């Protein structure tokens, strides 16, 4: 029963909330989407917190994504024990780096009066969620070893079944508690994106890489507006 709730109900609720919530927030509360940087109030300790934390999580996220999208390749890669070891050790390394960064970030925020002024209740919740996620992940990495070997075999089919709207939780139900916690907190995190500063994942500036450096906006482009001399439809100017 509770398995159905946590591994079928929660994931779907989280995904729906993510989809609807983030679109609504983007459309209606554009001003409130920001990475909410606090570097301006404290810049030195942030360096030792933010960089290991973010880079750790970025690599872990893409690691999980690869295992989900290309399970066969991951299994093939792991066929040589040394490769498996390299993969596992680097994953553990990124996990520790994220934990180390998070601890510094939490301590930094707690002890600095200026930062307390810009900390919301949701930020505290975010810290608890991230802490649960990272610690449970490290626990799994150490005690439920060789995750990269069993993830493609057990969790990839489960996640695939979720996305194909044919949930099959037999495999997940048999997993140890630490793995279950990791999954539940992951879906909670996904569902909380529209309500927290996690929103900044969704606005990573990909467009910057392919736009020209300079950006000029014309309210009124006379060349494009329809005139009596050229009776073609006008183009609405690119106004903010």
């Amino acid at each position, binding site marked *: 029963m509770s398995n159905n709730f946590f591994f079928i109900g929660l994931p779907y609720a989280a995904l729906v909330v993510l989809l609807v919530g983030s679109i609504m927030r983007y459309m209606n509360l554009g001003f409130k989407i*920001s990475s909410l940087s606090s570097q301006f109030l404290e810049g030195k300790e942030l360096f030792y917190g933010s960089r290991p934390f973010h880079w750790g999580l970025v690599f872990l996220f893409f690691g999980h994504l690869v295992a989900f999208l290309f399970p066969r390749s991951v299994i093939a890669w792991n066929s040589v024990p040394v490769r498996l070891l390299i993969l596992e050790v680097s994953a553990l390394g990124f996990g520790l780096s994220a934990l180390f960064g998070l601890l510094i970030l939490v301590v930094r925020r707690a002890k600095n009066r200026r930062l307390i002024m810009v900390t919301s209740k949701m930020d505290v919740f975010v810290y608890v969620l991230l802490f649960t996620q990272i610690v449970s992940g490290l626990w799994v990495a150490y005690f439920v070893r060789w995750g990269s070997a069993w993830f493609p075999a057990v969790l990839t089919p489960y996640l695939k079944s979720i996305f194909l709207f044919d949930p099959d939780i037999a495999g997940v139900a048999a997993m140890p508690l630490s793995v279950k916690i990791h999954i539940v907190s992951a879906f909670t995190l996904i569902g909380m994106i529209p309500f927290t500063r996690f929103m900044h994942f969704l606005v990573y500036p990909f467009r*910057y890489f392919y736009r020209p450096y300079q950006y000029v906006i*014309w309210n009124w482009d006379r060349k494009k507006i329809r005139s009596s001399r050229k009776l073609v439809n006008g183009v609405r100017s690119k106004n903010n």
Partner: protein
Amino acid sequence: MDIRSQISMVFHLDKCIGCHTCSIACKNIWTDRKGAEYMWWNNVETKPGTGYPSKWEDQDTYKGGWEKNGNSISLKGAGKFKGMKSLFHNSNMPVIDDYYEPWTYKYENLFEAKEGDDQPIARPVSLITGEYITPKSGPNWDDDLAGSEDYAKNDVNFKNLSPAEQEAMFQLERITLHYLPRMCNHCLNPACVAACPSGAIYKRGEDGVVLINQKKCRAWRMCVTACPYKKSYYNWNTGKSEKCVLCYPRLEAGQAPACHHSCVGRIRYIGVMLYDADKIEAAAASNDEDLVQNQLDIYVDPNDPRVIAAAKENGIHDSTIECAQKSPVYKFVKEWELALPLHPEFRTLPNLFYVPPLLPTMAFVNEEGTYETTSENFWGAIEKSRLPMGYMASLFSAGNEETIKTVLKKLMAVRLHRREETVGDLPKEEAMGAMKDAVMDKEMADAIFRLTSLPLFDQRFVIPPAHREEAMEMLESTADVKGNSGFGFKEPPVRGL
């Protein structure tokens, strides 16, 4: 030729009295909000001094602006590679302590304090934390402190001066200062726009005002690093960057920006400049010594029929062209070549030009202990000026001393000519000689004098109309919705299903 129009400014530094009225006018309108208290979109600095934020000119620390790489330029501390790899921690960004911690006073204590032996006082409290603080720095903390160890000695512009020249500036008889009012330059090659990963910062095509879209800003703070003038500010409360908007609501209504309008010394001029956008890239990548000249070459003559034709082709309104022809900025910058951009070596091609100060006088104390004021020495050698040419060149001409000397010669020739006209204690030949030296005639000298000393309000501020009557057409072609239906909404008149 791609002709565009730009609202540009000239500040006449000889007229600035350092009263900070501009800063206060701006503060009252725009930055009297939580998170923005520390921002001074317009501020007035004392030079020599460290400025606000402290030592903002030191790009070895802050990595602002562009740098030349061969024949092209790249952002010094931001950009698609450098910026994005430091997205998680922007290493070169100033923090609040580089500006100052904003504070207010507990005024209510003056009224509500319990009865006691002592007079109640209003203690300063931080506007960030609300705790009692002792203010240790402020936006004009170095006001008038030329010659001071803490501020003037650390001026970044001393870098290229010889130790003897530096020492001379701290001798009591020679200590001097001038004010430097600063605001966003609304550059032609803005580094903040180029550095913004979100694409939130843009330059308005119609008048060249650089703005930040508050809905698109995601607080990556690259603009704060990239702007070499440190005129993009991070609002720590809203998590968005903000900057000078050149009072665009006032501009569109035909009024000068508040800082300009309120200027007590009437040092500020605003007007339209037409420029050729095709030349920007090459000018921004020119060699240091050619930077000023190449920037001036971007601006085109608004009376040239070919320019007018090209401007009309680009949709520039007739009234804007007319304003460009009457522009005081064009006169100072192009016709008379009296005004120079601040720190052209940052390569952002700023649109705010300064007439460098002809410091109080260039007089010095003679052997008898009195000031030498005979005309020859009083106006005599530019080389004897209290602020060394190297210092002025570091501020206004990327180190090219000849540019500064030419401008100062012109300013002096105007003064000699007017002194000869009004006081009459100078031999006519001397005034004529000075004007000949500065390559100007009597008419030009008089025109400079009039626009400098006796300008009317409408001569200082020549602002093109925004054509509010055509405002709807600025957003859409009204003909496109002809025949549509609805009150308060527009929809093609198509039957429902």
